[in-house]
């Protein structure tokens, strides 16, 4: 299994709140892939729990690391692009 690593930026004016957290978790569950996200230096959490994502308290302008386990690199990059879309608010 290959892991695709990248970063996304929270652009939503109120940060990573309930709605984007829910959208990301829904997308991750539908994809069936294991996805981890987190702030640099704080350890990553599995992106399957909206509460856990909200608990990162990511603010507007902050960068988050994202890792996707998948041998299909194109699918992983699509998923990351979609996550970035959700973070635009």
């Amino acid at each position, binding site marked *: 299994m290959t892991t695709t690593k990248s970063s996304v930026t929270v652009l939503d004016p109120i940060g990573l*709140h309930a709605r984007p*957290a829910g959208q990301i978790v829904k997308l991750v569950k539908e994809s069936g892939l294991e996805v981890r996200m987190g702030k640099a230096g704080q350890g990553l959490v599995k992106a399957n729990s*909206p509460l856990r994502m*909200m608990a990162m*308290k990511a603010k*507007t*302008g902050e960068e988050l690391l994202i890792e996707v386990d998948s041998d299909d690199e194109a699918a992983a990059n699509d998923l990351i692009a979609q996550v970035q879309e959700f973070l635009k608010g």
Partner: protein
Amino acid sequence: MLSSGTILSGMGVGLSAVTAEVFRVKPAGAIPEAAKHAGDNAAETIRLKQAIEAVAAQMNELAAAADETTVEIFEALNMLLEDEDLFDTAVIQIEAGWDAGTSFIRAVEEFAELLSGDAVFEERLADIRDLAKRVAANIAGISLGLDLPKTGKFVIVGEDFSPADTAQFTDAVIGVVTIQGGPTSHTAIICRSKSIPAVVSCTGAADLVDGMQVLVDPVGDRVVVEGKEADITKPLTFVAKSKDPIIPVRANIGSLEDAIAASASAAEGVGLFRTELLYLSAKTQPTSAVQAASYEEILRAAPAGPIVVRTIDAGSDKPVPFLNMGHEENPALGVRGYRLIEDHRDFIIDQLESLELARQASGREVWVMAPMIATASEALEFAELARSAGNFKVGIMVETPSIVYQIPALQGKLDFISVGTNDLSQYLFAADRMNPALGAMLNPWQPGLIGALKQISDACAAAGIYSGVCGESASDPAFAVLLAGMGFDSVSSSRSQVGAVRQALSAVSKEQAKEVLTAALTGSNAEEAKSNALGVLSAISEN
């Protein structure tokens, strides 16, 4: 027993009033005390899973009959309710011996602790706790239904209403009063979207009982026991008596889009150009050429008149990625605004120099000011930086209490000051702007704030410094009249309010504005100050 005519103050939601009979929402049946289970972990886990599914199904059922706003809220809530990590955390509690209901509440509290201290999440926390209560109630076989009447017309009164509560509002609910909750509470949002007159944060409503007749008067921020048609507070209407307002009304902008919209309004220039937006999404510091180009575009688009630009107002709660701001316990009291000068002097100079390039290219009149100035030496240092960077009028924001006492020391050194009333209130009252429980202290009609504003305006007049106000309060037409009465030279409003503020300032003379101020100064609390001022204003507009 409340006597007829008793006034209960709160915060109004909506513009129309309504009279009807009180219906007190019964306090829900008590959730059983925390308890241990008999020892069968697997059975408790299944019980919890079933209860969560049942509550999720109830929510879906309520959502099916609800409006679009409610449906969206319910979808988000159900995602939280069915959160896998939350369930796993609850299972750990079951394994520790707690019964299913207690375990779920304990798991929610564990997450609540992680999420607390952040204003964006505080109100969601109340919603999640409500869900935990519903799950526990389902397990204990207790009904949490509101049992609202389906026919007739009622003003319903309760502590506060959760999304699951408001979804049960029937057509018989024509007015709402809550004892708790602020202007951004769920109850307020739903009442606004459904156009139900409401008064929230109305402490005195605890004494209302079933069968009383009440007037819900949102414009007057009050509930009147047995209130009549004549008691309804009408929104003030201003009739312009002159073409120009008694002091200029400028617009607040933050982007090119704002600048274009503002130039379509009657604004005379820009009183506050927030520059943070240009930097919030940049990962590296934009070059001087890039900054100058975006400033030029905005300066050219801005409404005719001077343009007051505020240098970057970032802090650890609104971080700019390339400035690397660390975590702070108290970001509102931390390294923010002009205090960035310690670590980022080059960036602030670069911002001023880019602005000078844009000023020359656009040919516009540009004033610059620094935010979060607390001492006269900071003000003087900024004035020197700004004057050596370009041909600007130079000023500062007045938003810390300490600088108020230093205005005389700035005589001859600064061209202008601009008061940010939101932050000034926060620091004057030591009341966090983001904390919904402290909303009443941040009411601009607080006599303490009015007194401070008067002192600032007087000190500026004595020192020969031009003074303006660009905070939220200057977007309230009646408050803008008060500011003109104090002697401020201009106000700057959010662009949607420019027209209404101009109208108000064109409906009075300077002398009349002073009378409004005198009336407000006799109020011993915010409600009195406001109603005294509005009383004089309505007498003026009727003549």
